[in-house]
């Protein structure tokens, strides 16, 4: 059963991630869902997605850049960023870019290799939803957000750096 933490609480997930999708026929096979589709799929099949009777969101892999989403970005209620491996740090930069450069207000969801010990940093970079890897203990994960009481940097959760607060 998938485990989702959103805004600091365990939350039922109403979205379905389409990990790989080769063509638009998948939309007919899965009618009426809320789908998180690969960014490339969305670029290729925008017309088909427009007619889809359900919610549509996108996910970007770590080697994709949120700057390439363009203007439609704000229409998405959710943008998911993938961690193919937890040690691949590129999605942190993508999350910050979404919040800081593009002022994106919707849900930013971490997906893939999402582990307890990275949640705190993820949250500081602008992620507010975490699709935990299946083996993670969700109660341990909920504690991760209070690993530190504060930090030095200017981040999404603390927009002023410590030197402007201390």
């Amino acid at each position, binding site marked *: 059963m998938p485990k989702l933490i959103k805004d600091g609480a365990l939350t039922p997930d109403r979205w379905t991630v389409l990990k790989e999708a080769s063509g638009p026929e998948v939309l007919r096979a899965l009618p009426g869902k809320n789908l998180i589709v690969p960014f490339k799929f969305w670029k290729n099949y925008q017309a088909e997605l427009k007619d889809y009777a359900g919610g549509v969101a996108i996910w970007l892999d770590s080697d994709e*850049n949120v700057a390439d989403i363009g203007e439609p970005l704000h229409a998405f209620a959710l943008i998911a960023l993938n961690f193919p491996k*937890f*040690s*691949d*740090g*590129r999605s*942190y*930069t*993508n999350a*910050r870019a979404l919040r*800081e*450069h593009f002022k994106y207000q919707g849900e930013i969801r971490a997906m893939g290799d999402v*582990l307890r*010990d*990275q949640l*705190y*940093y*993820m949250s*500081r*970079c602008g992620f507010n939803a975490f699709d935990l890897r299946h083996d993670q*203990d969700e109660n341990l994960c909920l504690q991760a957000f209070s*690993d*530190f*009481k*504060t*930090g*030095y*940097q*200017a*981040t999404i959760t603390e*927009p*002023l*750096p*410590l*030197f*402007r607060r*201390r």
Partner: protein
Amino acid sequence: MGPGCDGATIGSESGIGYCATGRAQFDCPVRTFSGQLTNHNCIDYNRTPPEKTFAPMYRYDNYDHQMLADRVAQFRDQTNRFLSGKLEDSEFLPLRLQNGLYIQRLAPMLRIAVPYGLLSSTQLRKLAHIARYYDKGYGHFTTRQNIQFNWPQLEDVPDILAHLAEVEMHAIQTSGNCIRNTTTDQFAGVAPDELEDARPYCEIIRQWSTFHPEFAFLPRKFKIAVCGTKIDQAATQVHDIGVYLVKGPAETIGFRILAGGGLGRTPVIGQEVFKFVEKQHLLTALEAILRVYNREGRRDNKYKARIKILVKELGVAEFTTKVMAEWAVIKDSALTLTDAEIARCKGFFTDPNYADLSNEPAELTRHLQANILFANWYEQNVRPHKMTGYAIATVSFKETGVAPGDVTDRQLEHLAALAESYSFGEVRVSHHQNIVLADVRQDQLFTLWQALSSQALASHNLGLLTDIICCPGGDFCALANAKSIPIAEAVQRRFSDLTELKNIGQMNLNISGCMNACGHHHVGNIGILGVDKKGEEYYQISLGGSSKNEASLGKIIGPSFAQEEIPDVVEKIVNVYKAQREPGEKFIDTYNRIGIDPFKESVYAKVD
């Protein structure tokens, strides 16, 4: 007494008591080993500025302490989960690395951060305690101004970190693919030729980079050095980012920033990305560089993942364009430094209470004339200070027979006492793995030297051929191809005659046990690199490297040598230099003038 402290002492370690708030009682003048302290005085971290009878140093406030305490608790939890099998090895790995913990050939190795090389006497005593109780009685100064211990037990590490936190120390980000300890010139703040003290900016960078949430999983490790002196002793140009304090338009001081330098497999000198940045934009400029690197640095091949490869593959112009595009967005954000913050950080590094003294006092001149050993030490190890009547003394940790950089618990305590008596209670670790007493009165140099001699710390080989930079090598390190410590020792034994060493003059020899280049062999005048040749340990020699202002990378002389050949090879190189040099010419200058061929011919000449 600090906030929340009721005056009771709950424990004592290494002569330093601590109270129920967990804070160390630095100011207590009376120490007992029963754990009871008289005249209790738990330090109040909110008290600023620090007392000037101590050398300038950043002092933690409650925020810094809180973060460190949170970190210790976090790592204790992670270690417990690992030991109980709830955290996989591969997932624990980056967590322990970011707390300085390696699994080595023989035991774990713990690398402790010494921010820009500064250590107080209190901290030295704490390190002595750790060496004694958690290690085999010694530690090792590294080429990045840190100290590491080779024998701690994994389960003890959270306790060691708690000890360190008491004295405002930690092992945060001393390893792993993150921003490492920021380094600077070991003479910062006391050098006569300094444009501006680099330490406040090092501290600003330290805070910005510590627990930076976006840059904890970079493609590879990331090292920053800052230099404010005219003569660069920090090897700034071979760092991922090199920051120079420079004069810009209208005589204002700001920064010139290089990126893409580094040693390792592919040594590169950094290239200019920012010609001049005003002070307030330092952090946004660094963040812009890091962001481009985090996004675009290669992650497919560990050996091509450093920023130097990215800068090289994109070209510095294209790389700079990307950085500037990023910088344009964040340039005036909240991360922009305030004058108040710069002033606050500078406030920690104002001069201690220097006495009003004159240069070359009679006490000094008399002893220099009377004692040849002292005179030798003075000539090699003492450098001019910005204040009249003071001097900078370097304690060489290159005693023959001792691994370069190794220091015992007793020596650490001895240094702590000497620092208190002679240098405002502070020492600096240099990237040459020596210790600097930065504020010694000239009229006390002789008594200092005597005190050093009593602990075998008066080697007067600073800057000479036997002042070798050397990594721990195959004796300790799991990455090494070959041993490096025995090579250093063999060279030191061959060149044991001081008159001859001085005749050879300024020359540096650096040894790395593998191409990760911890021993900085690329920038040694003579560089020695351990290589693996069909399972045998061999050594490749390069010539002409330098980490000074005119930084250059050494050239490989030819096929590699067996361990026992090295002293002969070094001697042949030295002999060519001696035969070819012009009066007063240093090795590096002779080499630059005559090139590598004469050395090659001598080293590989067939003996009939």
